[in-house]
């Protein structure tokens, strides 16, 4: 290799390095605005969770503050304690019942609201309102204002109706919370979450392609045919999205279970159990194992949810 050639290679590789460096710098300039949010999120949400996994394998109790060795005992206790298994069952029941019922209600109401009728805006506003009551405030009013056997509205309505037929009958008492506590929690949650489902499904209905609906109408399709063959297939991903997001929120529900049925082992769910394990028992190892269990349950739902969101997302970006 001659000296000249050597010089040329050096220069060209220098230029290449320069271009490379510039591209790298450009990449970092683009990343900078993203970094604060990204780092903050990792530090505040991911690290505590990793620590949770770590603690879940340790013996750690507030009463015996010294960490003492690794153990699988926490997970063993989660899966062998009968009340904890019951709590898992309550959590699953709450999610399934509340999500399915509010989805069905939500779809029905969204279909009704999608028609044009007098006072549509007013009814739509009424339907949103339950979602805009602070959950703990709503739970307290359901507990003491509606479900309460003595002063509650349900007992009051029962008394009122009973008095139409038997004016001298004593006041009726409806004891929903003490007799069917889980049902009481489900009713209140369905009341608050149906509006959520309705809003998402209504948005889905309004994004149906109009030309195809028109063509169907021209071809003389009946309302049922349009619903079965056009609306439902189009709504599938909206139903999935509403159901999965609802499931993720309800699996974490604490306010209703805690306020409607305090200290009731028949409704206790996992978040409430974790709250108790940390607050009352101070058993950090066990609480962490319980936390890991609820995350695994959530991941099952979340995987499907992410898939649905990403298909909607891709569709939107393809437009």
């Amino acid at each position, binding site marked *: 290799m001659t000296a000249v050639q050597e010089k040329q290679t050096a220069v060209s590789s220098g230029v290449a390095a320069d271009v490379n460096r510039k591209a790298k710098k450009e990449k970092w300039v683009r*990343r900078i605005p*993203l970094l*604060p*949010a990204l780092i*903050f*999120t990792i530090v505040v*949400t*991911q*690290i505590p*969770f990793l*620590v*949770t996994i770590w603690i879940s394998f340790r013996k750690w109790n507030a009463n015996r503050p010294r960490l003492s060795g690794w153990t699988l005992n926490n997970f063993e206790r989660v899966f062998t304690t009968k009340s904890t298994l019951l709590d898992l069952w309550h959590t699953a029941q709450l999610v399934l019942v509340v999500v399915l019922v509010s989805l069905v209600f939500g779809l029905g109401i969204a279909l009704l609201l*999608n*028609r*044009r009728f007098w006072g549509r805006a007013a*009814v*739509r506003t009424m*339907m*949103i309102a339950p*979602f*805009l*009551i*602070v*959950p*703990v*405030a*709503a739970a*307290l009013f359901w507990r*003491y204002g*509606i479900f309460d056997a*003595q002063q509650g*509205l349900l*007992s*009051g*309505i029962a*008394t*009122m109706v009973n008095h139409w037929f038997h004016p001298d009958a004593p006041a009726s008492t409806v004891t929903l919370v003490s007799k069917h506590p889980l049902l009481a929690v489900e009713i209140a949650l369905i*009341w608050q979450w149906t509006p959520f489902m309705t*809003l998402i499904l*209504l948005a889905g*209905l*309004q*994004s149906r*392609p*109009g030309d195809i*609906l*028109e063509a169907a109408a021209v071809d003389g399709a009946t309302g049922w045919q349009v619903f079965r063959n056009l609306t439902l297939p189009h709504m599938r991903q909206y139903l999935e*999205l509403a159901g999965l*997001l609802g499931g*993720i929120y309800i699996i*974490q529900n604490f*306010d209703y279970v805690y*306020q409607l049925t305090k200290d009731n082992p028949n409704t206790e769910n996992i978040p409430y159990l974790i709250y108790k394990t940390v607050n009352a028992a101070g058993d950090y190892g066990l*609480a*962490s194992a319980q*936390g890991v269990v609820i995350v695994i349950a959530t991941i099952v739902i979340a995987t499907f949810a*992410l898939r*649905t969101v*990403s298909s909607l*997302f891709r569709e939107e970006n393809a437009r």
Partner: protein
Amino acid sequence: MSAPVATASPTTTAHAAPAASPRDGRRGAGGVLLSVLTWVIGLIFLAPIFFMVLTSFHPEVQATLNTPQYFAPLTLHGYREFFGASSGQSVWPFVINSVLASVISTLLVLALAIPAAYALAVKPVSKWTDVMFFFLSTKFLPAAAGLVPLFLIAKATGGLNQIWFIIILYTAMNLPIAVWMMRSFLADIPPALFEAASLDGAGLIKTLLRVIAPIAMPGIAATSLICFIFSWNELFLVNVLTSTENAQTLPAFLPSLVTSQALFLGKLSAGAFAVSIPVLIAGFAAQDKLVQGLSLGAVK
């Protein structure tokens, strides 16, 4: 308000108008019946709130009668009691904590989310979709899962029963929602605008402030309102990490209105409704974008 959801993006508006038409043709008895049914359902869902408000204006004795009392005398007694007329427990420290926690965390969220959304929508970093889904997946992590470390960290750093610790957690709680919402708003802005701004020699900060902020203002407002609502409502974290009026927010205060010594339903209803008023206002103000926020930006 006929199609507020559709107005969020011009592409859906075009479809939305004809979408409703096939069902409009059906008038007559069936149509009227369906309209009445819709009204009845709406009223059923409104009923608990109606009775909450009604009870809140009734004297305690009438509030305790369980049959619907439409004609009981109206009074502000419940609201006076909620503000601590006879118990001596002032509600104001809790109001201040709630306002601090929700307003400051919302401002922090915006300060972090707007630049992030810029880096995800306008000049996207490579693999920006992966970053989006990372943010989303953190929202799927139940707060209960990180509770023990958060409690221990709070204890170690002196953050237990401190409002600043709650503010940090609420910021992290709402950041993913804000990033998703802001990205979808910024993605709607025509790229030519940014090119024009950069040709004029505007830097990032200047572009953000002068070009993006004015156009994205409705989106920023909706995002803030939704973050505000989520922070204002939060109970689980505040219940574990705070214990006194030094940092407790209104959701943690409300249950203390339930007493075993005296009648409390009027006071409780007043408190429940008063605490919900900011959420009702914010929710109706953000109505058009509510779906987008609740679905984490997936539905427009």
